């Protein structure tokens, strides 16, 4: 092939169909006689067809699409925590769990005050326990009681913090056929300072405690 370098240089534009007519005739005449150049023309035609196919398939994206793609990955990165931040966060989680286990007072895990609930004549088989947990505005009362008569229609029970004749509601609940209840109620932050608790049966909208006492007990500071 080295004996006809000029013609061989034209094979590319020839397969692309971009030669002048006289050049095209020259190449075709040569290809009639040269098997190696015919072979190369065949291979370059294949490359040409692939490139033409690619050119046909490509579309120019909107100019701002590249910016949107980059902005998208920047948003993605902003949401993704660096590994060292994630490691520190994980360490804090472990410390927090250990702190809850080892220092329950700080996290409300141990009762500030508690009471055993004793039955009255209206529910002689009933009993229960109340404990007050938490700190500041996050105080709650955990009530567990049993043996209470099931509530009738529009009837409910109410848990009270009691001091002398003062009554402060700690929340209401109902009891089904089991007569049992296990509930956590939000409590005022001074709940632990009351000396007694009681449960009454209620059936109207009067905010005051009824006289129907079901359970009562003395609160003991822990």
């Amino acid at each position: 092939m080295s004996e006809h370098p000029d013609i061989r240089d034209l094979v590319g534009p020839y397969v692309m169909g971009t030669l002048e007519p006289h050049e095209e005739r020259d190449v075709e005449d040569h290809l009639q006689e040269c098997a190696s150049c015919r072979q190369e023309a065949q291979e370059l035609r294949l490359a040409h067809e692939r490139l033409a196919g690619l050119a046909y398939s490509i579309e120019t994206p909107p100019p701002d699409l590249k910016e949107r793609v980059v902005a998208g990955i920047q948003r993605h990165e902003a949401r993704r925590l660096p590994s060292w931040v994630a490691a520190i966060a994980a360490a804090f989680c472990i410390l927090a769990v250990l702190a809850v286990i080892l220092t329950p007072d700080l996290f409300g895990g141990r009762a500030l005050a508690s009471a055993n609930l004793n039955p009255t004549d209206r529910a002689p088989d009933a009993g229960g326990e109340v404990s007050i947990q938490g700190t500041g505005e996050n105080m709650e009362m955990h009530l567990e009681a049993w043996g209470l008569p099931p509530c009738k229609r529009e009837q409910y029970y109410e848990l009270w913090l009691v001091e002398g004749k003062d009554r402060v509601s700690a929340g209401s609940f109902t009891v089904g056929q089991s007569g049992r209840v296990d509930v956590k109620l939000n409590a005022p932050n001074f709940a632990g300072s009351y000396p007694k608790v009681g449960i009454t049966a209620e059936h109207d909208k009067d905010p005051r405690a009824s006289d129907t006492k079901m359970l009562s007990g003395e609160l003991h500071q822990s």
Partner: protein
Amino acid sequence: MDRVEDEVLVRRVASGDERALAGLYDRYAGLVYGTGIRYLGDRETAEELVQDVFTSVWKNAAGFDPERASFATWVYRITRNRATDLIRRRKARIRTVDGEPLFESGETDPSGELSRNFDVAAALSRLSPVHREMLVLAYFHGLSQREISERTATPLGTVKSRTTAALRALRETLGFDEDRWFADE
């Protein structure tokens, strides 16, 4: 960025280099977008495809293994999978009252044409800048040999010989997969 191979750019993307991603975008976004228009039918969904594909490249670059496949093959697979997802999503949205899809088309690349296009794009990116310029101006800008000569201030004879050499180089670059190249003719 022009001379850097795709696989090098992916490594840079994996280390968080946005410019490297922009480089890969410049090489492949047109093909992904064109694929979207062709297979998904509208420009809005095609743009969604481009965003999905390059976001996926960004997120998964660290997992790219050049020993297993070229970047072009990898991005081709991502494009095909994302396009298929978009077609499925659209099929789920567009249904007739009796629950049958409105259209059944949506096979991405049944003829292998899409795969071949990504191979050619990858081969093109591996050519020398001089050779790539000849082919890009001719095929993607639609310039004649004379116009290329004027645009690049290069003698016409040189443009012709460079074009031949560029096609030859492209053929050789693609020749790594010669059996498949001819087998699917």
